[in-house]
């Protein structure tokens, strides 16, 4: 599932995020209120077009999960704008948010935790319909039944409880429950990381089919670059709350520009023994979100480090005139020199 060159999209993007920030305060910090801040999301902007799959990739402390939670208002953003289909989510009342949840659904990493242990599978998929008063009892049952079949769960399993199912089956139930309201945007945060490798592939394939059937746009968050490459049309690479590179997946994998992206991609273990590929070994440790490096957050581990990198944070600049953007002084200046 490669992305081909996209024709110019005349319509507005389905989801538009601008300068999203999410800051957590920690601790007590003495009499004068010096509480420590963690900028989990530090000025993130991206678009998701209709029918597109956007990948958000990063390691721990990158802030990728916090982005998802901010969009969904699980942690209301500290600042920034999230626009869904023309509507500014910040202006929504809690009542309006309820309706919005029909449009934006999510799937998280732990399928067992996401399901109510005391409800059968079928009941859990019916529940959203009941909450939003859609259809009558018979219709709801039928819809849920059909959808469970569509996600590959046989009728015999519909009456089971979550603990009686395998990990892959549970995640299918979670997907069915998310899709029963026919949302337009699905946010997936590490949806397959907790599953066995052979099951991961099944669920990814299922997501592909569901995307076509339901005409979904998807935000796919993962640390697994191979899956991002396979499944996503566009992607953003995050490091300590900021985007360091963004663009189409194919372009980025073919020619990563940001030194972090390069290191990340080179670090993926490849299942081909003869293949000698240089692993760009990153020195040092992942950054401490409580005490981030000054300037470009990546500079202490960067092999291209220059003086300016230590004091000024680089903006995301376009490179090569394409949609590809990189936040790196060195890359940007090289590009300008050309």
């Amino acid at each position: 599932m490669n992305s081909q060159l996209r024709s110019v999209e005349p319509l507005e993007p389905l989801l538009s995020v601008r300068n999203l920030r999410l800051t957590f305060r920690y601790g007590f910090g003495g009499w004068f209120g010096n509480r420590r801040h963690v900028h989990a999301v530090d000025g993130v902007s991206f678009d998701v077009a209709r029918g597109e799959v956007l990948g958000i990739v990063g390691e721990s402390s990158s802030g990728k999960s916090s982005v998802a939670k901010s969009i969904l208002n699980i942690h209301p953003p500290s600042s920034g704008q999230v626009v869904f289909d023309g509507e500014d989510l910040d202006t929504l009342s809690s009542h309006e948010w309820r309706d919005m949840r029909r449009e934006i659904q999510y799937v998280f990493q732990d399928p067992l935790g996401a399901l109510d242990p005391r409800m059968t599978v079928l009941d859990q998929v019916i529940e959203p319909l009941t909450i939003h008063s859609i259809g009558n009892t018979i219709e709801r049952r039928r819809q849920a039944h059909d959808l469970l079949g569509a996600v590959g769960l046989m009728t015999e399993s519909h009456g089971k409880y979550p603990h009686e199912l395998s990990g892959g089956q549970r995640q299918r139930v979670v997907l069915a429950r998310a899709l029963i309201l026919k949302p337009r945007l699905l946010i997936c945060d590490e949806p397959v990381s907790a599953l066995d490798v052979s099951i991961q592939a099944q669920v990814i394939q299922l997501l592909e089919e569901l995307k076509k059937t339901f005409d979904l746009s998807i935000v796919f968050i993962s640390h697994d670059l191979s899956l991002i490459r396979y499944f996503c049309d566009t992607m953003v690479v995050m490091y300590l709350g900021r985007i360091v590179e963004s663009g189409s997946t194919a372009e980025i994998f073919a020619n990563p520009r940001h030194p972090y992206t390069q290191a990340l991609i080179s670090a993926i273990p490849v299942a081909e023994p003869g293949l000698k590929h240089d692993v760009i070994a990153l020195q040092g440790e992942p950054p401490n979100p409580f005490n981030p490096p000054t300037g470009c957050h990546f500079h202490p581990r960067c092999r291209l480090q220059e003086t300016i990198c230590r004091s000024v944070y680089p903006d995301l600049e376009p490179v090569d005139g394409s949609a590809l953007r990189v936040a790196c002084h060195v890359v940007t200046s090289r590009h300008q020199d050309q």
Partner: protein
Amino acid sequence: MSTILDFIDLKVAFGPSQPLALPVVHGVDFSVEAGEIMGLVGESGSGKSVTCLAALNLAGPQAHISGKVRFDGKNLVTLPEREMSKLRGRELAMIFQDPMSSLNPVKTLRSQMFEAIKLNNPAFLNARRRALTAEAIRLLEEVGIPEPITRLSAYPHQLSGGMSQRAMIAMMLAGSPTLLIADEPTTALDVTIQAQILRLLRGLSDERGMAIILITHDLGVIAETCDRVAVMYCGRIVEIGDVASVFSSPAHPYTRGLLKSRPRLDQGDLQLTPIGGTVPSPYDLPSGCAFAPRCSKVSETCAEAVPPFNIADDRGVACFHPVEAAETDDAEGAAQ
């Protein structure tokens, strides 16, 4: 090359008593040569961790182990605990999956390093603090921890995931082991840190001539780090051989399926072909070959008996219908 560890028909079952115990490992045969890195790959329920834990008798009081594990002329399965604990940390070392919780949270790194050194390095049995500190620093430097002197005073929760894993490795190197068992050492770590740790392990194996059993579910890790690989499914080894030939021409349908479950760049396009069905639970194993319900090459024989392990030229497969190298991939496909 000499064999240092030999698994002979190892079986492990869990339960309060032998007759009621649930079998989890059904007879594992393989050996590890000196200085090599042996990969043990499988999904959940494959028994890969249990096999190695059982070899070191760390599988817990509910584990019932039979068969033989030969090391240095002894059978580890029947070895009394007193002697087994002398081997652990010295000739045989093991590191585990989640380094952050595998270190005692209320003791400093110094305290834990000293304990490992005094216990496993006879030269330091009655050493004074200064000598122990020097040795601890030497080990920490060997595993690539910067500023080891300051790190010694740290508590485990003050170390990052990568640091903790390096510290664990350093502790386990104190006794100069001939074999290090690494149970999913990088699964809980970031990809860039994983690359560092794997490189460290390879380096240590080369420099010290130390053999490593690397347990993982990630075929990419195997491909980049290991010399040989054993693929496990539902408590049995289904395929074994050197990494180059197993990856280029996998014989067992499960190995094939596993390789195709990860997105790979074949013919210029990304492909993903899942294996249909689910991994059976150990309570409910199919009769005959455990993989049969999911296999595209299944026949009647497969359900009748467990396929025997056939070894030829250092390559082993347990399958009635092993894939020949000449067969194309059209024969594959997900069985429903």
